[in-house]
């Protein structure tokens, strides 16, 4: 009883919720980006790599800015960070797009190669940035990091628990939710969203309906990649406070891919899914278990994903399946 009680007390605390959300945000960015990508029929397993690229891109951009200025402005730092984050993630997504869409390389293989590359790229630049640019010390951007961490003024500390629960995060947290909601609206309510879903379901039918399949695949993959990249940025800026940790981002990129399955390819579902995953990710620390059993506990998000995958394949509900042409290349004159 006391065991359950202590778990219970831990989970229903403000700090647990806050930490769960903090863990969930990068996954939410990654998952939203991957959902948009997969809706075009591209299974981009390079997303974990792209998130590393976005992370180091944003960090490097802010670093170059802060290093060149006597009194760096946090807001300009944010702009620089976001710009370079998007640019680097776009680079990653473009590599994937050119290879799989134009050159028709195998999607799984290309994605895995991109993850190898992207993770290496992030760690390489993160670890050798000072050497390359000839600057001293660790790549750290204090001002920009603090700007990213800025909570919502007034609301966060004047509303008691409500303030701590809902208003005590940096702006990227809210952006991740807004993007996920926007993505849901886009997919369900707009013509372009309808067309995009058609491309992922049946590219030949979409083509016959005069949809430019190549354009949609490129746009979805690139925009999806950029959204995912923001997840990396969140991690280095808000979570780490503007610095690099080798392999610090860990396997969160793969968790984002798992979250896509958990969310059944619905971005709105990914919002609470990401917070749940975030909670599962840190739950071990709230359970009074031996250190070794905590490691077992860390399996939870993956085990839950497998469970969802199995259940949805058993149900065979058409609306809950992966996009039908996921992973397949499209070549119009194929016979």
């Amino acid at each position, binding site marked *: 009883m006391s065991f359950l009680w202590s778990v219970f007390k831990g989970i229903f605390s403000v700090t647990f919720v806050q930490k769960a959300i903090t863990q969930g945000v990068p996954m939410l960015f990654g998952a939203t980006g991957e959902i948009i990508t997969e809706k075009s029929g591209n299974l981009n397993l390079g997303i974990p790599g792209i998130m590393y690229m976005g992370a180091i891109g944003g960090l490097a951009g802010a670093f170059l800015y802060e290093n060149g200025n006597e009194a760096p402005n946090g807001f300009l730092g944010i702009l620089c960070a976001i710009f370079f984050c998007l640019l680097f993630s776009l680079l990653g997504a473009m590599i994937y797009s050119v290879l799989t869409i134009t050159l028709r390389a195998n999607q799984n293989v290309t994605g895995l190669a991109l993850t190898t590359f992207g993770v290496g790229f992030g760690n390489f630049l993160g670890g050798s940035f000072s050497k390359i640019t000839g600057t001293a010390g660790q790549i750290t951007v204090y001002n920009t990091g603090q700007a990213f961490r800025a909570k919502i003024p007034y609301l966060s500390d004047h509303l008691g628990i409500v303030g701590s629960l809902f208003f005590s995060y940096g702006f990227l947290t809210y952006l991740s939710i807004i993007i996920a909601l926007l993505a849901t609206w886009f997919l369900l*309510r707009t013509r372009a969203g*309808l067309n995009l879903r*058609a491309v992922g379901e*049946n590219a030949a*039918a*979409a083509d016959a309906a*005069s949809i430019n399949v190549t354009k949609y695949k490129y746009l979805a993959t690139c925009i999806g990649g950029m959204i995912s990249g923001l997840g990396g940025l969140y991690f280095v800026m808000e979570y780490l406070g503007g610095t690099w940790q080798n392999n610090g981002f860990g396997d969160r990129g793969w968790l984002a891919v798992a979250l896509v399955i958990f969310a059944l390819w619905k971005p709105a579902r990914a919002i609470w899914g990401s917070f749940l995953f975030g909670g599962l990710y840190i739950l071990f620390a709230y359970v009074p278990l031996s250190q070794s059993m905590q490691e077992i506990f860390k399996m939870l998000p993956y085990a839950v994903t497998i469970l969802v995958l199995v259940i949805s394949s058993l149900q065979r509900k*058409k609306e809950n399946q992966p996009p039908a042409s996921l992973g397949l290349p499209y070549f119009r004159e194929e016979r």
Partner: protein
Amino acid sequence: MTENAIELKGICKYFGIVAANEDVSLTVRKGEILSLLGENGSGKTTLMNMLSGIYYPDSGQIFVDGKEVTIRSPKDAYALGIGMIHQHFKLIDLFTAAENIILGMDGKSPVINMKEVLEDISKLTDRYGFQLDLNKKVYDMSVSEKQTVEIVKMLYRGANLLILDEPTAVLTPQETDHLFEVLRKMREDGKAIIIITHKLHEVLAISDRVSILRKGRYIGTVDTKDATALSLTEMMVGEKVALNIDRPEPKHPKKCLEVKNLTCRNKYGVKALDSVSFTAMGGEILGIAGIAGSGQKELLETIAGLQDGEGSILFTDPDSGKEEELIGMDPLKIQKMGVSLAFVPEDRLGMGLVGDMGMPGNMMVRSYRSGHSALLEQKKPRELSEQIKNDLGVITPSIHYPVRRLSGGNVQKILVGREIANTPKLLMTAYAVRGLDINTSYSIYHLLNEQKEQGVAVIYVGEDLDVLLELSDRILVLCGGKISGIVDARTTTKEEVGLLMTKHGEEA
């Protein structure tokens, strides 16, 4: 403004070294229905795919309203008012009818106003009298409903030229009649319509003019009022239809297969076969006729152990007299029971052959289990390949060349050759000559007759009634999964079989 809606000049299209269309010219006038007639594989669909932007011609010109145009994509085609309804519908299963109809179109706003869309479409469907639930998902629809969605989709896009590829192949007679009414109404509206078909009575019933293709080449165009079924057939096949297929008298026919009350459901739970009973005799050819999708595929696959069914399929070995029940068996069990059964399925590369392998690998499909070793027997399949290559005249650079890359006729020879090499007691073929040239077709008929004379029970599912009438001993007619009649092929007429094929739900 010219009277011609579309004009094609000297269109050529190649796939690898195969000419699908060579120097084809064609015109369609406004306010007319043109039938594009030709045998399977004569290049009708390929030609129309170049109008709809799916393929791009290797050479030739296309004129719309007298102006030369380039059609590089379906988008170009729509902009020119050309809409094509493919044989395999290009619909998104997961979407509703309305969503499919507006797919890919620019609206007034980037956001979908479903209410407005539904009103717009309803105006159109009311005008032509379509029955369509716009909020129904495509995966819940019948074939005819899907076709309606496709037609509305094209009209909604403002198509002035409508191309329909084999639109009646999957429809019931009533549905066909309804479709024709709609088409006539569209003709009155001044739209040009091209129907791709190989059914002569439909050509005569609906079209104003008929253009004929043969082996990828343009043969000619005639006014329907001047044409008869015979004259069209002559143009289509290129010579008088005196097929002169041999039909030896069956010698000592013995019961080989007895099917009783066989019922079989498709994956949606609908009965594809409904209490089918018949007997196939060793030493005779039993032809099976019926419009596409009447249960032919299910019948053969159930006998071969590839589908589940209820009822009884009793196989009697004509030599030993041993009887075996085949219901509930899979191909492996049937093989192990010693039931010698050969099956040439409809989709040769999708079932029956391994496209990426050469001939020896494909010979092994039937024989790879032989011997107790874990290793494959290599020599015999190679010898068999050489033998089939020589005996049947398979044209291939080497027996190890992947069969996927061979022409349809050669692929079929390999498949039939392998199945016959097994010395079967029962030989089932589905559309054995589809897509083959006349000479290859005749060599296949010859092979079937040889088997018959050796006492094999041959089941021949065909689509060409002339061939069925001349080759078979008896003809079993399927209609909507039921047997609508079994007739003596020597005495029956084409009309009688044709009538049985469409004898839907009557006293059957």
